[in-house]
């Protein structure tokens, strides 16, 4: 048969959205992150200047507010705990060459499950906490299993599906709380407050800082260990980096994609559990100030490295606490954090900026 007898190129039904491997998007070092953070803060300063009456006071509160007292510092730790874990969630997915922008939904569903388990499961506090957190992780995995299955089996792009699962999670959790778990004495959509025995042990009282921080640290260490010290980590990395090369090496990239996505969902779920047991102590609508989305930013700032993510989470938590402090002393609102988030992602993933030094 000559080549001409083959059919003309068929219409390729590739997915319309085409995505580059994310590891290729952030190949550069942590220094670009540092520069981006500084540039982002400068932009924020000008925004504050534009809207605020007292720019210096506001900016000082924004950047240093965390360190004004133990309470603020404790709040920072509490927020950093959750952010670190959602950051790890994004990191694991990104490293596998996938986008999980559904961490928010996984986190919300897991938060609800945690609150319900912690409330209804009898037994000693510690055991219940562990069971509740495991249930949280399992919920997150379940929530990401659908998009992952669709991607692996049917090549449906996970960006849209994980995102849609966010909206489904938001409405479904509201429905479940309203219908079955609602605190009848409250006007708000929330579950009854958990007994203090169910709370993660805190420190720096009365701030929300809790032993969840050590869980986050431990996860960071485990991930660092897996990524750098184990064969599994290395295989996972190459499967995400260049699937064709992985196939050539005999690494089953599909299996690693599954594992990474489930890991990512599990971590997002765990973050939800930590937020419930450690911070809000009940499920309440809006308990997550977009922890899931912030995790993407944190993962990118930390350059998808576990220890970098820990530092980035602390840094970002500082800014969130600072933004709260800023809101108190000036008229600059908390939403500055979201603006900074958008700017940071753009600056960090830019391959056109800082190019001279990167090469």
């Amino acid at each position, binding site marked *: 048969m000559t080549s001409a007898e083959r059919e003309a190129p*068929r219409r390729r*039904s*590739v*997915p*319309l959205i*085409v*995505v*580059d*491997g*994310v590891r*290729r*998007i952030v190949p550069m070092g942590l220094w670009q992150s540092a520069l981006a953070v500084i540039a982002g803060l400068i932009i924020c300063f000008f925004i504050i200047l534009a*809207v605020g009456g007292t720019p210096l006071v506001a900016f000082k509160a924004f950047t240093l507010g965390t360190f004004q007292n133990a309470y603020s510092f404790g709040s920072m730790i509490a927020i950093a705990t959750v952010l670190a874990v959602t950051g790890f969630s994004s990191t694991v997915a990104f490293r596998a060459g996938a*986008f999980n922008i559904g961490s928010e939904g996984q986190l919300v569903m897991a938060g609800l499950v945690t609150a319900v388990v912690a409330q209804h499961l009898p037994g000693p506090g510690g055991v219940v906490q562990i069971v509740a957190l495991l249930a949280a992780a399992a919920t997150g995995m379940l929530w990401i299993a659908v998009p992952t299955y*669709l991607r692996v089996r*049917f*090549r*449906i*792009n996970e*960006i*849209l*599906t994980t*995102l*849609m699962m*966010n*909206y*489904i999670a938001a*409405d*479904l959790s*509201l*429905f479940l709380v*309203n219908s079955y778990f609602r605190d009848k004495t409250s006007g708000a959509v929330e579950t009854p407050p958990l007994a203090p025995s169910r709370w993660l042990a805190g420190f720096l009282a009365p701030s929300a800082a809790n032993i969840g921080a050590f869980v986050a640290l431990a996860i960071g260490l485990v991930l660092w260990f897996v990524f750098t010290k184990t064969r599994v980590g290395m295989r996972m990395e190459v499967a995400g980096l*260049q*699937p*064709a090369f992985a*196939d050539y090496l005999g690494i089953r*990239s*599909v299996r690693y*994609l599954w594992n990474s996505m489930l890991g990512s969902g599990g971590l997002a779920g765990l973050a939800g559990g930590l937020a419930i047991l450690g911070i809000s102590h009940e499920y309440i609508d809006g308990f997550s100030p*977009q922890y899931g*989305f912030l995790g993407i930013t944190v993962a*990118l700032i930390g350059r998808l490295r576990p220890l970098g993510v820990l530092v980035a989470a602390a840094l970002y938590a500082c800014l969130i606490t600072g933004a709260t402090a800023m809101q108190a002393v000036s*008229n600059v*609102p908390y*939403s*500055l*954090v*979201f*603006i900074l*988030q*958008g*700017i940071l*992602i*753009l*600056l960090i*993933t*830019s*391959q*056109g*900026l800082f190019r001279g030094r990167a090469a």
Partner: protein
Amino acid sequence: MNAFGDFLSLTLSSLIPILVTSIGGMFAERARATNIALDGCMLVSALAALAIGALLHNPWLGLLAGVLAGALYAALLAFAAFVLKCDLIIAGIAANLLATGLTLLIVQNVLDSPGTYAPQGTRLIPRVPIGPLADIPVIGRALASQSMLFYLTVAATIVAAIVINRTRFGVRLKAVGESDEAAEAAGIRPVAVRTVALLLSGVGAGVGGAYLSLSSVASFNSDLTGGIGFIAFAAVIFGRATPFGTIVASALFALATAASIQLQGAGIIDPQLLQILPYVATILALFLQALRDRRRDRFDASETSYLPAIIPRG
């Protein structure tokens, strides 16, 4: 029959923001310049439309402001992708987050209203009375008192289909969307075409956003879109970025939205639960599409195909 007419009316009004936004998004997707920030564009333009509309007491100027804001926001995305050289998907995610923050900040600090911004006495985009035609069974009831934007959307859709199929720009759009190499060989600059396509997607999302804040209630909060931008984006994908496909997909999702609203009123199923209907429909639609495609692709060598960059870097 009246109930059906009402349902149809509801479907049409749900269709407007989805359709007009996805028609815009279709241009971008067709040029392989995925605009995943349609939702962010809608949010920004909804606020701009409402604020300017209220300030100038003219909903049409509000609409214009919304369209400009949407285009400007899409221009930001184009800047990020082609000048900063960010990945378009990641830049789109960033743009969505930025839109939330930006609108919150403006509502709170510039417009001085915490949470929800609802300027008093804002004039809405008028509804079109169709006079005696309203007596036609079903259709009459469905079309009675639809927003002017419904007709604008229908017109825009027709124009978009003509632009794609009949004009030089349409030909070049398709060329860029399929092969940069072929386009460049013919002297077409892919980045220029993509930038225009992104701007058009911003214009579409701008109309969609303005509809959300200026058609039924003149109010704005950061949850206003409820993911309509993403549903519109899904309609583009499901419709394979063709005019007809996008219309059908938008109609499908509008039907799901209308069904969820209608059934909420009926009280059979919990209203909260019904709200997930459009999102479930979206995932289901993508699933069915993939099922159809899989038959053609079953011979591919490896199960995970490596996907190249959206825009060749160089």
